[in-house]
Structure formats: structure tokens, C-alpha cells
């Protein structure tokens, strides 16, 4: 029904169930070793090595553990998880089952953002088919003693719930306010039990890794950012859509791929990401250079970068959970600053103060949202000062 351009995805070539079958043969330690060897890091953006996460969760001593699939895709410019869930949900459920086998968790929860409610019915149907097929439930996949089932829980419109501890809070029936870490969810997660929270894409890739082997995965990408990654590309380019590309690709290469070569700047990582100006298009998109959850927004030559900063800050002001001071009050203060810039009423001294405030917000906020909320603003100020300072009101 809703189509995005996406061609040549590896996911389309994967035989359903093959990865899981191999995983069950490998057993707990074997799966974790394979995932660790692949070098895969969280595809949601934070980039935590999945093998390490599973290992910690597997080591936690608690008979009740949870596998949570984070399908609260809310980062502006990101829609690859929607594509995966629409077309390749089987790989995600398979990945969850592999995770369950790896950490020994009897229960999985898919936390689906409220905006994607239209996907629920089909996902439920697929889950039921898996149950009917013996892939889920007691003695799942025909393996004696292996119990695993997946429940879908819905979000209700809160970007911050994409943060794993906020997601857990939401699951527990609270406001989606991130928790203090440590302790981490792998030790104390949903209802106090060890919980491995993984992004939709990560789980789908893990199914592929178990199927094709970690060596296959490592063939792609860089040493520190192994493998392939889906990119959600939008904005001023000829062919927006979802692209599967190896990590380590340069911005230039990506722009050539999507028909955005005349771009003035690219926002990588959405509202919480950074704005990369033309002069830096030779940089790599990878955890070691420009990290991303996959959001790429292309800005053509005519775009006003102050509009971009404003839109993203408005987003952060509305989506901040509001519990910690720097994020709750820092972002509105930055937004007021943007308004001053727009009106040509911001002194260089105050702008410097705002940049300094932005840096304080980055380092002193409680969670990933707050810590990255000023990124877009700061990178735009850094790279486009001449465009945004000394405006006359009718310039816009």
C-alpha cells in the first residue's frame, strides 16, 4: 500500500528460517560468538555492539528475561524500519527468536510506534502464522524446552520512547522518561528483569548473519563499522527512498547514488544528527566518523539552514520528556536564539553563549535525546555562520 523506493535489498534474498535453524544448532554461546564476530553494532543509531549486549544479558542471572524489538522509529528522516516491518517482518521475528535463544529469554515484545498502527494487523497475522507453524510458543521450532513468544505493544506518540530505557518505562505504564544508567537494561530492564533491546534493522541483519555467516557480513563496511546498512534518504534529491549501502561510504558517494549531487548540505542522523556541509562531503558515514541510524536528509542549494535548525529545535522542544533541566529548558532557549537570529537580533556574544549552552546540553543531559538535541543547531551554527548572522528581517 505505501511504497518507498527500495531496490536490491539483501533481505529479499534471505531464505526464511534458515538463520534461526542454524542459530539453534549453534546454541547460546555459538550465537553470541557469531554475532560478536560479525561486528554488528546497533542499527538504531547508538551503535552499541550487539554481541556485547547479548553477552551481558545472557550472563545476567534471572529466569525471566525479555527481548524487546525497538520499532519506535521516530527519528526525522528515518523510515527504513517501516519498510522492513512491511516487507520483511519475518526476518525481524526470526532475529528476536535468535536473540531469545542467545540470552535465554522466554518472552519478546515488539514496541511499535503509534504512528505505525496500520502495520499492526499484518504483524499480528504473521505472528499467528509463526505460532501455528510451531515457530513460536512452547518448544518453539521443535526444540524441546525452548519457549518463546512475541507480543506487540504500541507506543502512543512520543519520540523519546525510542530511547531504550524510556521505551521500557512506557512498557511499564509510565511516562516515557529515560532512566539513569547504569544500571543498564541488560541487567535491570522491563519489570526489573534483564532485557535486550534491539532495533528492528539490527534484528533483521542478525537473521542474515546467522544465515550467511559473520564473515559474509564483515566483507562489507569498514573495520570498525562492519556490514551493510539501510539508509532512509529524503529531501532535495532525485530518488528518495531506502538504500542498502555498506557503512564507510562517503557522503559524496551516497549523494551520487540518490541523485543529490548538487546538495548544499546533508543532515545525517536526523534531528539528533549533524549537518554536514558541502566541504565535508568526503567524510565517511560510519560509527567512527559520522554515525547514523540511517537518516539522510539532503538540502539543495536554495535551502535556508536556519529553517532547518528551527524545525529540528521545535521538534526537540516538543519531544523532550521534560525531566532534566538542560534538555527541558536548554532547547527552548536555543530556539529563542534561532528566532533572534532570524530577526537579526542576536549579538555575536550571545550567539557564543548559546553555542556554549548547546555544548552544556550535549554533555549534561540525562539521555541520548537530550545529549543529541543540540547537535543540529550547533553544527549549523558552526558551518553556516555567514548565512545566518546579521540578517535583516525581510531577508527571509
Amino acid at each position: 500500500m505505501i511504497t518507498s523506493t527500495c531496490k536490491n535489498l539483501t533481505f529479499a534474498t534471505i531464505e526464511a528460517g534458515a538463520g534461526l535453524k542454524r542459530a539453534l544448532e549453534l546454541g547460546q554461546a555459538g550465537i553470541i560468538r557469531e554475532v560478536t564476530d560479525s561486528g554488528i553494532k546497533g542499527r538504531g543509531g547508538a551503535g552499541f555492539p550487539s554481541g556485547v549486549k547479548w553477552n551481558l544479558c545472557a550472563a545476567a542471572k534471572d529466569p525471566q528475561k525479555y527481548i524487546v524489538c525497538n520499532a519506535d522509529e521516530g527519528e526525522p528522516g528515518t523510515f527504513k524500519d517501516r519498510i522492513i516491518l512491511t516487507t520483511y517482518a519475518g526476518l525481524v521475528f526470526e532475529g528476536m527468536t535468535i536473540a531469545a535463544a542467545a540470552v535465554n529469554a522466554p518472552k519478546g515484545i515488539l514496541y511499535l510506534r503509534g504512528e505505525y498502527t496500520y502495520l499492526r494487523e499484518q504483524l499480528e497475522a504473521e505472528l499467528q502464522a509463526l505460532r501455528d507453524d510451531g515457530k513460536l510458543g512452547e518448544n518453539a521450532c521443535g526444540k524441546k524446552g525452548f519457549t518463546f513468544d512475541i507480543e506487540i505493544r504500541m507506543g502512543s506518540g512520543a519520540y523519546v520512547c525510542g530511547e531504550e530505557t524510556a521505551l521500557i518505562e512506557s512498557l511499564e505504564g509510565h511516562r516515557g522518561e529515560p532512566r539513569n544508567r547504569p544500571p543498564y537494561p541488560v541487567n535491570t530492564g522491563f519489570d526489573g528483569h534483564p532485557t535486550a533491546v534491539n532495533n528492528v534493522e539490527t534484528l533483521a541483519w542478525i537473521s542474515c548473519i546467522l544465515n550467511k555467516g559473520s564473515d559474509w557480513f564483515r566483507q562489507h563496511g569498514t573495520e570498525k563499522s562492519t556490514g551493510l546498512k539501510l539508509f532512509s534518504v529524503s529531501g532535495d534529491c532525485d530518488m528518495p527512498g531506502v538504500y542498502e549501502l555498506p557503512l564507510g561510504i562517503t557522503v559524496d558517494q551516497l549523494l551520487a547514488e540518490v541523485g543529490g549531487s548538487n546538495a548544499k548540505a546533508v543532515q545525517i542522523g536526523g534531528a539528533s544528527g549533524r549537518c554536514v556541509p558541502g566541504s565535508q562531503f568526503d567524510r565517511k558515514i560510519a560509527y567512527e566518523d559520522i554515525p547514523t541510524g540511517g537518516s539522510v536528509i539532503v538540502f539543495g542549494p536554495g535551502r535556508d539552514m536556519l529553517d532547518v535548525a528551527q524545525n529540528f529545535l521545535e521538534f526537540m522542544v516538543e519531544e523532550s520528556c521534560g525531566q532534566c533541566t538542560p534538555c527541558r529548558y536548554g532547547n527552548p532557549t536555543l530556539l529563542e536564539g534561532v528566532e533572534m537570529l532570524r530577526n537579526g537580533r542576536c549579538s555575536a556574544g550571545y550567539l557564543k553563549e548559546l553555542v556554549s549552552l548547546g555544548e552544556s546540553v550535549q554533555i549534561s543531559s540525562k539521555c541520548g535525546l537530550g545529549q543529541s538535541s543540540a547537535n543540529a543547531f550547533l553544527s549549523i551554527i558552526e558551518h553556516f555562520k555567514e548565512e545566518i548572522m546579521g540578517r535583516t528581517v525581510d531577508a527571509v
Partner: protein
Amino acid sequence: MSDKPISQDTSRAPTSQKRATPIQAGAKDAIGGSVSVTIDGEKTKVPLGTTILEACREMGVHIPTLCHHSDLCIAGVCRVCVVEVEGMRTLQAACAFPITAPITVRTHTAQVRRSRRHIIDLMLKYHYGECYACGRNNNCELQALAKEYGVDFFRFGHPDKPMHDVDRSSHSVVRDMNKCVLCRRCVRTCIDLQEVGVLEAIERGEETTISTYLDKPLGDVVCINCGQCINRCPTGALRANDPTDEVWAAIEDPTKHVVIQTAPSPRAGIGECFGLEPGTPMTYEMNTALRRCGFDKIFDTNFTADLTIIEEGTELLIRLYKALVEKDTEVALPQYTSCSPGWVKYLEHFNPEMIPNLSTAKSPQQMFGAVIKTYYAKMHNIDPKDIVTVALMPCSAKKFECNRPEMCDSGFKDVDYGLTTRELGKMISEAGIDLPAMPKSDFDDPFGTATGSGVIFGATGGVMEAALRTVIELVVGCKVEDLFEHADILPVRGFEGVRYVELPITEVGPVPEIVSHLVPNWDWLKGATLKVAVAHGTANAKKVLDDIKAGGKFSECHFIEFMGCPGGCIGGGGQPIPTSPEIRAARAAAIYAEDADCEVRKSHENPAVLKIYNDFLMEGPCGHLSHKLLHTGYTARGKYIS
């Protein structure tokens, strides 16, 4: 160090936000181990799981805090306590970071100082009000932080007009959200510590505010007026409803005879308003100060505390007799104490079906009001309409209690004004009186003679201890001292949230005269085991009530003392700010010391009490006049908020 906050067991906060036994994958010997930490270049060892904040305090390194409170679970939201932890990309909240592996911490680097200063600047950007026009001037944590960080201008601006109306609907608590800094201590207090659940954060982001249910006035929701939120508010956003202007006006009105009764806890706390250490007793200095302020008579609430013991104890014996001898199955047991107005309103809201269990005896404050406007008025030939009774209490709920419409049994409003310890401190300062320098003076007659039992009402377990001292002597016929050294009934003392004690009655004595009209003998109690319990803080009360409803061991109890506030009255919502377990312990120690010093330590030996039964309440305890003046009824309020 590493003591769990008192709300740990009652809080429903996520387990990850509580002080938990640290679990570290793979570390088998982790529990109970210690870990090294380097703070500003100095290395030390701390127990595993100690927070950075605790480690710093232990080393004498000051870390500013705001949302942190030693009574409450971790929040980590204000971010004022951020520090640098080597190897971590971002700063960490010292209050929320448990040390489970060796770390290196720096507490005042450039970015730490800059971030803290920005956080304070941001709070001030949204904090309306000028310090000199604030009830918390000089006792405000935000003000102190601004001073500490040398704030000399409003970097990001400052509101020039209020954003919220001040909510004055409650008799007890005034809520001014213009001054709120969203530390959420009140929320954690109201839910985790008290299980009242009046305050919560609503909306999100910049719009977040602390609100009552649907932003209704505080007077219309299920607030029990305990004022614990006031005690933990770092700013002037929550304060008590202050009647000092009216009290001054009464004092200055020559036609009024202004009488003040003073409860035991304020004496143990008021010194803190004058820079004294917590737990410095000011009983007799305060009497002089009150006289100099212009009060006509100064009475000791302990008198009616003793009276309460007689009335409430008698009521218990009547209930037990009906249940055990007359086999009356309608009798509500266990009997609950009724002297804490916060607790009483809690029960009226949350467990109205248990109102029959509540002793009908009024609280000492209200008994005193009724006695002053009847017995005392008659004795001194003063028209009760000209008497103004003021009650000095450690409590904000007492303000609500004295305004209960039924509290007019003398024919007048029994207690006109409830004054908190803090408010009296203010009056004394206003009068230019240096309290600690006052000469000592005694209470006025005819209620002057206090007993130790009355004094210990101020601490959790005190009412139970006082009641047991009397019941043991009346029933068993021996001296309490024969059973408990110095008549200190230690099992009911302490700060454990819920305490349970069994007392086997192996011997019984003759029925003493004071209750001889009620029971023929005590034989029916011989061989019985008296089961009692003590709970303080309404979250602990909820635990006990839930157990009773489930038919657990507390349902077998005969008598349970409930106090609305953690620590009992010494931790009341009208006491000086701040509060902490150490401060409350010091105040309690002052109270037990005063008890130990008393010549008479048992309520039934108080000569003034015996005299009032002889001269005025001639039908004895729970008699007709007692019932009219000293007992009351309750309102089943329910928790539905209309």
C-alpha cells in the same frame, strides 16, 4: 553510607532507580565487595554500589545537588550534580551513578562548572519571584546554588510576570508553581513516601509542570495535608498556609485572651530556625519567648496527650471487653490511633470502610481546644467567645484539622489557629527575640504538669509506648519498670517503617478506680497476648492496611499506632526545613531525653488529668461529657475526586 532511603520499600519507582544491590555480570564476589575510586586525584575505596555523590561526601568533596534528597529514591533529573567520569563521553549525575568498577572522577573541571552554571541559569530563566519577597529567603536551595555559582545576572533572562496562579485553596498547603524547579521531590514524596498521589508531573518538555489531578485546587483533591512535600521542596513552591498575621492581630486585641498550647515536637525543632543543632531542646526558652510575644497563657499539649491516652486506652479496653467477653462481632478491631490528622484524612479518603476502627478520641490539639473553651473558661471565669486558642504544632495538617466543621464541641471553634514550628520561629524573629538566649520559664497552670508519656507522642511509636505504659499498669497491676528498664519500651521505638510487637499478659491485677465503672475484672485478659503495631508515613500505613484487608498478621492486632509523617510528629510538615533521617533522629533523641527527665512518666499518673476527671469529666473516661468534648466522628470521603 549507602543507607537506603526511607521510601525504598514503599516506592513503586522502577527497581533500576532504587538503591539496589549492584549486579555485575560475571562478578561472583561483587556483592559486599568494595571498589576503588579516584576523586579529583585522590584515591579511596568505597563499598560497591556507592554513588559518586556519596563517595564525594565521604571524602569531603562538595557536590551541589537539588533533586537529590536523602529520604527519596534517585531521580537524577536536575543535573546540577554532574561530574566528569574518565572514559565517558558525557558528564554523569553524581547522585545517580553507582560505582561498580574502578573509576576516575573529576568534580570541578571547566565543563563541569560551565554545565552547572548553565543549568542554574536555565532554572532562573523559568523561576518567577524575587528572593527578598519569598518565604524561603535564606533557606532556599536554588538561592544557595545561585550564590555558590556566583550568579550575578540572568544570563538567559528571567520572567517578569507570574505564569501560574497561586493555589491557596487548601487550609494547609499553598502551591506556587511559579517557583517550581521541577526537581520532583514533592512527587516522589507524595507517591513513594506517602502513597497519597496528589502531585505528579504532567505534560512534557517545556510544558511540564507539577500538577494535581486535572490541575484541581489542592483543597479539592485527596491531599492529606501532611506537608511532607513542603519539607522537601527546595524552593518556595510549596509552603504552609501562614496564619501569623491573624495570630498577631489576636494578641494585639485587648479584648482577646490568647492561649497557646505547644506540642512536644516543635520544642525539639525550633532551635534549628535559630541556627542551633537539630535536637537542641528549647522547651523552656520557648515559653519565655511566647510570653514576650504576648501570649496570655502558655500550656503544654502534653496534658491532653495524657488525656488522649486515658480516653483512647479506655476505648480500647471497652472494645476488647465487647469482643472478648460479650462476643460482640461488630466491634471493630484493631483500634487505630487518631491523633495524626494527616493519617486520619488518609483513612477517610483511601479506606473509609475502616473508619469504625479509628479511635473516636480527638487528637490532643482538639481535646485541648475544647477543654480550654469549657473547663478552663469556666474555671477562670472567661467568656469562651473572648478566648483565642492557638496550637503550636509540628504539623501542617493540624491547620486543616482545626478547621473541620465538627470541631466546635465547646460551642465555639475549639482551636482557632494552627501554627507551625516554622511560623512561630518567624514570629519570634519578628519580635526581635533571640530564642536561644531566653531565660527558661515553665508552662502555666492548671495544665502545666507534663508527663513523659505526653512528650514522646512526638516520635513514631510514642503514642503506643505511652498507651502501653498505662495499659500495663492498669491491667497487669505491676510497674512498667518491672517489665521494661526505666519504663522505656524499646521494641516500639525506632524508625523502622512498620513495627510489630506482642505482649503476653500473664498476670492481671485489680481493676483501678478510673475504669472500674466499665469492667468488673481483668480475668478475661489473663493469658491473652496483646498484639500491637506501629506505622509511620502513610505509605507504610497502606502496607499495614493492605495486609489487614488480606487477613494478614496485622489483622490480628488489637491496637495500631499510625502517624502520617515519616518519623512521627518530629518529622511533621510544619517542622524546620530541611529534614533528613539524621535530623529526625536528633529531634527524637531530644524528645526521649525530655521523657527520661520527667518526674511523672505515665499518663494515668498525671495529677492534672486526674483532677479533670475529678472536677469536670466526672463520669470518667469515655463518659458522656468526655464523649461530647473529647471524642469526634469522621467523614467517609473516599478517593473519588469530583
